């Protein structure tokens, strides 16, 4: 039976099998590259050696034999390496719960728990409705505030037109002067009236 290694895939973001396959292919590619390089060197050396009877075809044959041999060795070793990596590295122990799955720790055990979950969902729905209502109410108040502030600023602006906070410039002083002056005039008038009598 296949173990699909789903939890490991969730954690790593790739399947362990794909990972091993990629490693295998990488090794294979490298082996092939090395063989090609080695063959080139041998060809060069063979052609430069005096009295060499080695042909390119012979060298190619040997290279292919060597490659086959290396491949077989590698495949055997890789089986062991794959086992170790899958068991010890690309593996999540069965008792481990990933942090992202903490909400599933207490999986609903039956009808009761499911019923509780449904109640919770309904409560959340009501809370959301209330919050949305609050948002509309707050936005409405902001609109009313704008209108009210504009009206109040208009009134203040009207007061500005009348003059500063103590009335039109100098009104207070002028009034005080007039009253003082009137007081003096009154006493002078009384004085003159008496003297003229």
């Amino acid at each position, binding site marked *: 039976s296949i173990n699909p290694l789903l939890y490991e895939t969730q954690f790593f973001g790739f399947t362990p099998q794909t990972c091993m396959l990629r490693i295998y292919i990488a090794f294979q590619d490298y082996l092939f590259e090395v063989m090609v390089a080695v063959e080139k060197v041998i060809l060069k050396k063979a052609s430069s050696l005096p009295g060499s009877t080695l042909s390119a075809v012979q060298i190619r044959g040997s290279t292919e034999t060597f490659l086959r041999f290396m491949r077989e060795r590698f495949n055997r070793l890789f089986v062991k390496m794959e086992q170790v990596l899958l068991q010890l590295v690309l593996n999540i122990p069965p008792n481990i719960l990933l942090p992202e799955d903490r909400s599933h720790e207490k999986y609903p055990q039956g009808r009761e728990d499911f019923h509780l979950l449904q109640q919770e969902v309904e409560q959340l729905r009501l809370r959301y409705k209330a919050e949305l209502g609050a948002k509309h109410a707050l936005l409405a108040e902001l609109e009313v505030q*704008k209108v009210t502030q504009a009206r109040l600023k208009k009134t203040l602006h009207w007061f500005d037109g009348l003059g500063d906070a103590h009335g039109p410039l100098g009104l207070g002083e002028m009034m005080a002067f007039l009253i003082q002056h009137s007081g003096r005039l009154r006493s002078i008038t009384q004085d003159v009236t008496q003297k003229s009598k």
Partner: protein
Amino acid sequence: EQERENVKLAEMVLEGRKQVLELQQQIQARKQAWQMLTQVPK
């Protein structure tokens, strides 16, 4: 998310209420200053 948005909106509303109150107080102060002026000639 809606709760977070509402907190920001509520802050704006409180600020707006404060401004309205300040404007009202300023108007009251101006009105009272003018009213005091009528006391002078009395």
